[in-house]
């Protein structure tokens, strides 16, 4: 729209003026992306004379904050619904929206667990599974995918009494690591740094909606051009390799 192009122009002039001082780009992203984005940032900053200012939080909080005028330039969500909501409210540049990344849903068990799982259906019946931790499905994307998987496996009703709903993935992992629950559903990328938990099973992608980390340029932001550029960079082959290092994967087309 007209206003968008105006803002673009402002962004460009500001960029042109400040040859020495790097231009700040506000990147608001799901907390689980912190390590990898921090790793990727310097490459982009050097090339574009930019400074990436991150705000990591839960996707839901970030959505509310953007709705209240938070100064984000680029939003990377861990789930679809948040960005859908912002799209409906016309707060993001829908044209820029991409499904940046994907992940694997895995079942984590304590490091010393002897549990072996060969099919997700088993967890409703095998011994020793008295408690199962998943993220609160309506809030935590990994929880939503976990629910879909359990429903698909037709054991949602059977396991429901055993469920413990956590505030975020970190909490699910805490429960697993301390042995409070026999198993928990988390992302593969979350397991990269966990010492006291291990992956017992990878849930096939067919059991749930495609796991996506959608990203989009925020209309309210000031650096539309740089934000779009950053998004391009994050989609690049070079970036993807780093994402893979941290346990993420490309979205299956």
């Amino acid at each position, binding site marked *: 729209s007209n206003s968008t192009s105006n803002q673009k122009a402002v962004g460009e002039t500001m960029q042109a003026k400040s040859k020495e001082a790097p231009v700040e780009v506000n990147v608001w992203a799901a907390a689980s992306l912190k390590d990898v984005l921090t790793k990727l940032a310097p490459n982009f900053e050097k090339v574009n004379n930019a400074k990436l200012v991150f705000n990591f939080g839960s996707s*839901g909080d970030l959505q509310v904050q953007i709705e209240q005028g938070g100064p984000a330039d680029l939003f990377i969500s861990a789930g679809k619904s948040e960005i859908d909501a912002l799209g409906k409210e016309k707060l993001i540049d829908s044209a820029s929206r991409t499904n940046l990344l994907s992940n694997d849903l895995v079942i984590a068990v304590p490091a010393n667990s002897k549990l072996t799982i060969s099919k997700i259906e088993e967890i409703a019946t095998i011994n020793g599974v008295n*408690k199962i931790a998943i993220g*609160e499905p*309506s*809030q935590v994307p990994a929880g939503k995918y976990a629910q879909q998987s359990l429903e698909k496996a037709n054991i949602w009703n059977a396991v429901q009494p055993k469920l*413990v*709903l*956590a*505030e975020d993935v970190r*909490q699910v992992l*805490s*429960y697993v690591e*301390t*042995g*409070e629950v026999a198993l928990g559903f988390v992302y593969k990328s979350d397991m990269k740094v966990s010492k006291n938990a291990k992956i017992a099973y990878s849930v096939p992608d067919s059991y749930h909606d495609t796991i996506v980390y959608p990203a989009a340029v925020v209309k309210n932001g000031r650096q539309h051009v740089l934000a779009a550029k950053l998004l391009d960079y994050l989609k690049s082959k070079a970036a993807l390799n780093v994402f893979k290092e941290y346990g993420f994967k490309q979205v299956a087309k």
Partner: protein
Amino acid sequence: MDLAPIWLSIRVSIIAVGVVFIVGTGLAVVLQRYSFRGRTIIEALVMLPLVLPPTVAGFFLLLLLGKNGPLGRLLNYFGIQIIFSWWAATIASMVVALPLMYQGVKSSLESVDLNLEQVARTLGAGEARVLRTITLPLSWPGIVSGVVMAFTRSLGEFGATLMVAGNIPGKTQTIPVAVYSFASSGDMAGAGYMVMILVAVSFSLVFAVSAWRRKFIRWY
């Protein structure tokens, strides 16, 4: 509308405040009156939950009370599992409310006239009776403040509770946890309703205490 979270919250808060009242007052008396090694360390430990974000406090509680935690193991031995029960919610409330009760009582104890305690002793009262009939009644403004702070803090406790008690409707879902549940599923009306109940309970408490205080004000 499901009333379970309300009853649960009230039950949890009342029990938590009951325990915290006794423990907090006791600690305040001991730490304020007796000088011993490690006194300040105990005080710092009591104050710790105030500085720790509730989730962190909850994490430590999980490590302590969990299956493999030192206390959890002991309780497990007796067949008690605390984590994910409403007792866990109560313990979380207690831990976060304790520093407030402690500070409330402590500051009032400091203004009690020691002469009055002395005279009570010459009238034959032992330490326990002096405490019960002189020291604590004269500290009532601080005790009331402590209880008000502890109760409201308890009632609003969320982070640590969610960590150790989980979010199990009808079992461990207190009002604040229900707020979170409603809000995260986008049911803002439900969340708002729960917040209003919180506000109502806290207002009633403040009103009741204020009316009660006015009855006693300045008779001494």
